[in-house]
């Protein structure tokens, strides 16, 4: 116990640094995957059959395989083909590769949620807009979009909470996120070795952060309660 108290400030500092990277990956993934998911959703709903079939095939593959494998493929496969590591050897390269894998993976999940949301808006809404002389774009932005958002907030919340925890998978390509930081005290780091508790302690970070995310998304859900 005494020892843990001595180690505590050092460990917390290292975990904070790791968590910053976790947070960065989370935010970049969110910012990239939320719009990209919409593009993929439109692709999968396209009336141009080859495009919709291709998009759905890609989504099926991405959703049907582990994100961890996707990370490994994106990070190592180009190097195997080209003979050199396109990502560079540093943390920046690992972050870039992680971000691409996460954005693409999550965009595929989001696209399915969007598709469900868009298709659940009754056609009567679109027809009412058409009859009132609105353009397709106006109907989407002024009529459909908010109804879709209202419907997708609950499933999106689930995905986003999963994303917070999934960022830990980037550990597989040695991204220096919080799990990596916690684990480093096992082998030895900052003069501490063989300590398992820092790894356990990372859970507190995830828990608190997910608490904040849950509250924020809950508020958004409430704000859309004014209509049905």
């Amino acid at each position, binding site marked *: 116990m005494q020892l843990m108290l001595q180690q505590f400030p050092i460990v917390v500092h290292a975990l904070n640094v790791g968590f910053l990277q976790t947070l960065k990956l989370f935010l970049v993934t969110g910012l990239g995957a939320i719009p990209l998911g919409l593009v993929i959703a439109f692709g999968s709903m396209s009336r141009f059959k080859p495009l919709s079939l291709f998009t759905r095939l890609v989504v099926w593959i991405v959703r049907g395989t582990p994100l961890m494998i996707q990370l490994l493929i994106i990070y190592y496969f180009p190097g195997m083909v080209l003979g050199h590591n396109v990502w560079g050897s540093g943390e920046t390269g690992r972050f870039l590769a992680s971000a691409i894998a996460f954005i693409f993976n999550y965009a595929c999940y989001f696209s399915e949620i969007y598709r469900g949301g868009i298709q659940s808006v*009754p056609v009567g809404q679109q027809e*009412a807009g058409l009859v*009132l*002389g609105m353009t397709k774009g106006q109907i989407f932005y002024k009529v459909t979009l908010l109804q879709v958002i209202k419907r997708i907030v609950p499933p999106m919340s689930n995905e986003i909470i999963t994303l917070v925890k999934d960022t830990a998978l980037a550990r597989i390509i040695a991204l220096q996120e919080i799990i990596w930081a916690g684990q480093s005290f096992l082998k030895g780091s900052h003069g501490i070795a063989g300590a398992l508790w820092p790894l356990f302690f990372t859970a507190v970070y995830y828990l608190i952060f997910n608490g904040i995310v849950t509250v924020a998304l809950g508020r958004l859900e409430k704000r859309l309660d004014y*209509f*049905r």
Partner: protein
Amino acid sequence: MAILEVKDIRKSFGKTQVLRDISFSLERGQVVSIIGSSGSGKTTLLRCLNFLERPDGGSIAVNGETLFDAADPATQREAEIRRKRLHFGLVFQSFNLFPQYTALENVTLAGKLLAREDPDYKARKKELFGRIEAEARQLLGQMGLSDRMDNYPHQLSGGQQQRVAIARALALRPDILCFDEPTSALDPELTQEVLRVIRQLAQRQTTMIIVTHEMAFARDVSSHVIFMDGGVVVESGDPEQVIGAPTQERTRRFLDSYNQN
């Protein structure tokens, strides 16, 4: 000149022919009621007039201008359809109000979007919007909804929602307002309040096409009744004649099925 001239409209879905050479015309200020059993093609006809379906044959002219002619591709350009739709208004059986907007916003939304196409929209925005809102308030007042303007659709009864939908359609000043069974989703009491406002519109010389199962209403509100069956106009003419003394066996059978209930 007729305000609406519909000629030989044909429409099939796959192999089923739903409309077979439907023709009729309508004078300004007239009310036409379309009656007929389920599946006879009434909704499809209204959808063709509102360009929600594209007829396979025939033509539609408003005020002498050919809006659609199946034989003339120049009348079918996608880009012009949106503007052409504005000659017609459509009130749906299921209201289809926009749930995220208040009654007032439902009525003003389309007008405000169309105002953007005004050449000096930027300079006159305030004035245009002011006018659109004033008109919307007036229309909602006329529908008996002065105290409901700021309510969202889910806070309104079905009858109130349908009256908002009528105001929404009227706000764009269509030449011809179409109703597709406007009261079929309502219970009898609410039906009456909606029929009352449609009657008022008829008195104000609003040109209307009303698909309805309310025979008594059709009989006293219309200038003209069309009975459709199997995608054809079986009988049409004066309401007293078509509903009161039909000459066709099919019309009689249809009307009898109403008298039995």
